[in-house]
């Protein structure tokens, strides 16, 4: 069971640089999630680790061994694809057993391992079926079964849940988390869904435009985003970024004389970020900022309220779902000062 290490890996397709120097380490048994908007290069990065694409520069190491030049079949990894890529002409049993047969494992041993994997994944009743007779969730589990049966050095998942419906996605997410605990194997997982990333990962790698924006635990990314990109990408609804303002006298100064007291700061913050749950609605008399409701989405437990603040603009506030809010209604806002995020003019955390 292995560590996967990337050292300054680059990848270009012709003149287009897709991966611009990525270095990271997946420690043994760690669950690493690559997350980022579409086109950020996260799938390409995974394919580079698998060996399905050749690197343009840098090196990849598995268990300390340089595998940069090795073909995928010599890297000892397993991969679960978004389309599952099951072999349509084989039964579920055949699909799971194929890699073991390739490796020349004894028949009895294969049978034992396949049945054990099927048991874990609740596939035992379907072993004799062909993939086309299975539901999406079952196919997905066959793909996972095919990966775990080999006991690889690491698992690679390429958006494995995006073809499932919402309910099944949540369930499979939990199953994957349990599987990770059970196997204790290194897993690298690609997704564009930040909730999947937050719930599954030990370590999240946020990518944008082929570059690593931040690497850290879900809590680090949530509570201490290194830059405005990560701040807005992690968390739903996303963090409010207030417009650029000048800092002076312990306060941020906005248009029309509106100011927010933030106390003494070491740097010179330009952008203030605040998550919707760190703003609360209050009576106008106690308010730090006065605003009016422009739009309200009722989510059940919460109201997702959009308010307009003079001098600052539109803000997103998470309020109690029991509140009855009308469009145009004036409201007061209070910010939780301990939870504010400060960024300099380049969007880097100060």
């Amino acid at each position, binding site marked *: 069971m292995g560590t996967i290490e990337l050292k300054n890996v680059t990848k270009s397709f012709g003149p287009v640089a897709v991966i611009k120097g990525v270095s990271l380490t997946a420690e043994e048994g760690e669950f690493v999630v690559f997350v980022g908007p579409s086109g950020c290069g996260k799938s390409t990065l995974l394919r580079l680790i698998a060996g399905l694409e050749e690197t343009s520069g840098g090196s990849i190491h598995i268990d300390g061994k340089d595998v940069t030049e090795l073909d995928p079949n*010599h890297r000892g*990894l397993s991969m679960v694809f978004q389309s599952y890529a099951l072999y349509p002409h084989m039964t579920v049993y055949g699909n799971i057993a*194929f*890699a073991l047969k*390739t490796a020349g494992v004894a028949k009895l041993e294969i049978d034992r391992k396949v049945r054990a994997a099927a048991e874990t994944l609740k596939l035992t009743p379907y072993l004799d079926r062909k993939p086309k007779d299975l539901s999406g969730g079952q196919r997905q589990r066959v793909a996972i079964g095919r990966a775990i049966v080999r006991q690889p050095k690491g698992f690679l998942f390429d958006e494995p849940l995006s073809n499932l419906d919402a309910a099944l996605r949540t369930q499979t997410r939990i199953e994957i988390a349990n599987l990770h605990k059970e196997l204790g194997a290194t897993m690298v997982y690609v997704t564009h869904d930040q909730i999947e990333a937050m719930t599954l990962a030990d370590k999240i790698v946020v990518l944008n435009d082929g570059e690593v924006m931040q690497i850290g635990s879900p809590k680090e990314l949530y509570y201490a985003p290194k830059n405005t990109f990560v701040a807005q990408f992690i968390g739903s609804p996303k963090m409010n970024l207030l417009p650029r303002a000048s800092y002076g006298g312990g306060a941020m100064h906005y248009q029309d004389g509106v100011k927010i007291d933030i106390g003494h700061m070491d740097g010179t913050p330009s952008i203030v970020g605040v998550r919707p749950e760190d703003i609360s609605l209050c009576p106008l008399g106690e308010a730090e900022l006065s605003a009016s409701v422009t739009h309200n989405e009722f989510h059940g437990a919460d109201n997702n309220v959009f308010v307009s603040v003079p001098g600052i603009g539109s803000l997103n506030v998470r309020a109690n779902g029991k509140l009855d809010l009308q469009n145009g209604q004036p409201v007061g806002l209070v910010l939780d000062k301990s939870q504010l995020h400060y960024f300099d003019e380049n969007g880097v955390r100060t």
Partner: protein
Amino acid sequence: MSPKTENRILATPIVLFLLVMLGFPAVLDILYSFSEVSFENLRSPTLNGGKNFIKVVNDPEFWAASWFSLKFGVATALSECILGLVLAVYLAPIIRKNNWMIAVLIMPMIIAPAMMGLMYRLVLHEFVGSLPHYLYLWLGDSPAFLSRENVFLTVFTIETLQWTPFAFLLIYMAYEAIPSEMREAASVDGTRPWRMFWFIEVPQMAPTLAVAFFIRFIDGFRVFDNIFVLTGAGAGGSTTSLSIYIYLSFFRSGDIGKALAASVILFCVAFVILFFAGRLLRRDRA
């Protein structure tokens, strides 16, 4: 107007067309095959029971022709499919980048088979052919391509050269239709290229391979024009296919009843084969 009558009216032209174009000759064919008939009494054949069929079954040339057609059909279909498969897999990476190559590769298909026969008749002719000429010039000897011993190999080669592109085209399409993720999944799982070919790629191309083989077998089995032009059923009748046998019985010997009896037998056998092949393909899909 009820939908039923409407359907009947709409279907009438095609049913009439089929009856006239296929039904009439078929009925005539069956009628003549049971009759004493020649060019003199075409309009007033006299029924003679199954005498024509007995004549055909007792004719060693009929069996020789059947054997030739079967051998030729199986051998050419097999070699065309194998060659087509090898070409498709080997050339796929090149063709992916240069699509126009397909046009060049399938060129033999656009030549009429009779022209192909004519062409090789010139090329292989013992006295004026270019191939024997250069073989004599360079090696001092040349095989007699159209002799009794070599003629099967010669017509087999010509047929294979002309129709391998057809098998290639079908198989190449099937090969390209295999999802790339499946190959990638297999290769990440440690599958070596050779094993990938036999256990992942070939099984997925199997239906296409079967169809290609079947089409080429039918075409080879009923072969007529290129062989007839090239060798005219020679040498010594050794390249008489069933189609040529029927043609010769009909026009050369004027034994119309016998020729048509043979054609009816051919039709029945073909129908049985088609029936089972269809069932096999359907079961394959289910």
